[in-house]
């Protein structure tokens, strides 16, 4: 293709490393090192270094922060493919500015989810092999490991790749150190009408195919708990749909925060417009409504005529030891919902408030994940064991910090090697390709 070589710097800050980025990465690397120390201590001493202990006679909780993080991170991954599919299905072109960052977020969140699973295993190396070698679809964990981590992550990577090739083709026209890398990335794509049409169809069907995979994957995490009769508060048909919906809330909330930061950093206020924020805000509001409805239904169901174990658990949650966490995280979901409702009624979508709402609902979502995992293990035992306790140690918390830092670093690195906002098709390119 006879396009002139551009000497301008690469768009969207790709390839240019500034002081701000270095400072950000510096903080992230410190966080990652902190997490690695935690992992090493855990490997050295065994999981005795965590706050987890056996159920029953040891009066502990055998699942804690790690499993909550698995559920949370996989939940965050919800946004990417959903947004991408909605753009394709409903022609929501003004969301295009957040599409790629949402896809990157999906991939990063799934990687973090996988990492959180690995640190939770007593035998991590064995786990990596045996989970595939002896995989049993009968176990709800099969959904978590195989469907989410391999299927969903793989499909998302393919989707991210296919949708990014046109931009890679554009970037090869810039004279930069990364040119060979972009050529490799574009893999022969030069944006002919044929290729463009084929990619359009591929991404459309891929988005359609990933949507059910997304529902299955998030449901399977709900099934991890919802199929168990041995613990009070877990067994129930609402678990799977509630997981999908809360996944949506945390994922969209995360995307709102990320989009606001990225558009500020890249001065891309026009590409990521207010309409995109307003749309995401509305979507999050609807999901929050549905989730709160689920919570109310669940509380009513368990409170009306509970078994003794369920009653003990409800008391611990509503008025007992976990009440601060229960009401705190409920407030962290309800208050943003009120704010979003207000913004929807008055039609004034303020980006800053949406960011606050995004952060707060994620805190609430993390709290909810902990509440699903931990209290059912410590309270309402079916045999007369004593009430258990669980409190995470610094090892678990440092691993959590490390995981979040790793995620931030991965996104920051991606931003420097590839435009995290889709490039606009310049009019002259249209001419060339038509």
């Amino acid at each position, binding site marked *: 293709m006879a396009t002139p070589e551009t000497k301008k710097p690469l768009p969207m800050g790709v390839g240019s490393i500034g002081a701000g980025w270095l400072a950000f990465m510096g903080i992230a690397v410190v966080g990652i090192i902190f997490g690695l120390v935690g992992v090493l201590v855990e490997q050295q001493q065994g999981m005795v270094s965590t706050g987890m202990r056996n159920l029953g006679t040891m009066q502990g909780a055998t699942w804690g922060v790690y499993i909550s993080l698995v559920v949370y991170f996989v939940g965050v991954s919800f946004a990417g493919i959903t947004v991408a599919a909605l753009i394709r299905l409903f022609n929501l072109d003004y969301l295009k500015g957040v599409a790629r960052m949402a896809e990157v977020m999906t991939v990063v969140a799934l990687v973090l989810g996988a990492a959180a699973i690995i640190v939770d295993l*007593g035998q991590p190396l064995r786990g990596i092999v045996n989970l595939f070698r002896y995989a*049993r679809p009968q176990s709800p964990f099969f959904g978590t490991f195989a469907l989410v981590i391999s299927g969903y992550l793989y499909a998302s990577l393919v989707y991210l790749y296919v949708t990014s090739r046109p931009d890679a083709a554009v970037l090869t026209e810039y004279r930069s150190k990364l040119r060979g890398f972009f050529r490799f990335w574009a893999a022969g794509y030069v944006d002919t009408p044929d290729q463009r049409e084929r990619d359009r169809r591929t991404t459309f069907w891929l988005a359609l195919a990933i949507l059910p995979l997304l529902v299955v994957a998030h449901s399977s995490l709900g099934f991890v708990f919802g199929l168990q009769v041995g*613990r009070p508060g877990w067994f129930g048909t609402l678990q799977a749909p509630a997981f999908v919906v809360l996944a949506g809330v945390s994922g969209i909330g995360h995307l709102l925060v990320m989009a606001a930061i990225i558009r500020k950093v890249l001065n891309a206020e026009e590409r990521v417009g207010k309409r995109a924020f307003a749309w995401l805000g509305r979507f999050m509001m609807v999901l929050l409504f549905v989730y709160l409805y689920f919570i109310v239904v669940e509380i009513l169901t368990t409170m009306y005529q509970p078994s003794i174990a369920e009653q003990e658990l409800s008391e611990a949650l509503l008025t007992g030891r976990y009440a601060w966490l229960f009401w705190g995280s409920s407030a962290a979901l309800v208050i943003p919902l009120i704010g979003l409702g207000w913004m929807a009624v008055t039609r004034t979508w303020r980006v800053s408030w949406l960011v606050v709402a995004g952060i707060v609902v994620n805190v609430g979502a993390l709290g909810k994940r902990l509440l699903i995992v931990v209290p059912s*293990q410590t309270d309402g035992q079916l045999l007369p064991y004593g009430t258990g306790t669980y409190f995470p140690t610094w090892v678990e918390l440092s691993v959590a910090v490390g995981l979040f830092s790793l995620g931030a670093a991965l996104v920051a690195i991606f931003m420097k090697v590839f435009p995290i906002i889709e490039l606009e098709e310049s009019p002259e390119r249209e001419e060339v390709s038509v």
Partner: protein
Amino acid sequence: MTRYAMAVDLSRCQGCRACVEACKIENNTPSAVFWMYVFRLEQGEYPNTDISFLPRPCQHCENPPCVKVCPVGARFKRDDGLVLTDYERCIGCRYCEVACPYGVNFFNWRHPDEAFADYQVAFDDPDLEPITGGAIPAYKNPDHDELQGEEQRLTAGSSHFKGVMEKCTFCVQRVDKGRVPACVETCPVGALQFGDIEDSESPISQFVSTKKQFKLLEELGTDPSVIYVGGTPPTHEAREIERPLTGVSHGNA
């Protein structure tokens, strides 16, 4: 078909915990780990209290939730009804533990050989010799390291590995040699019986046939192989008294 079962006669149990001790010795379990456990339960208000005991081995369910949820098939049920853990396959995800309503699973939170005397007996520990004075050499039952059953998997007793789940095996290494579990053998009052419940002529079938029986948490559909006679299921008013150390502290020792 053989289906191994254990019968527990609550009217005979006096709470001596000889079974707990026998289990710990046979299987060399780490501290705060009770494959066999005896609840001491109290009901009512002083002075009108009612004390009862409830031995709790693994229930070796016919429909075990732990086997269903294991993502790698390390927890499995043998044809003879024994629910066992393959210590070489377990990845330590602890899903079996949260799935089990009976709380019988114990995870190796750290390397079991560490911190002798605080944790479990390490047979090659040089510190062991002065204690026994060389007179009684530490003896490790070689059966524990053998692969068990038709499946030929490492499922027996005292080979504890860091980061791996374990629980009562019904002493598979003894059962496979035609013996009864250590707890059953030790019980001084014959409160524990073991055998093939499918065989109507077997001593255990005879033992339970005329008595009123119950199984723990039967309503969950797990169909345990541990049959309780001579008593009633624990009610929810029952408080556990005389608890062991929780083991929460053993980590910091």
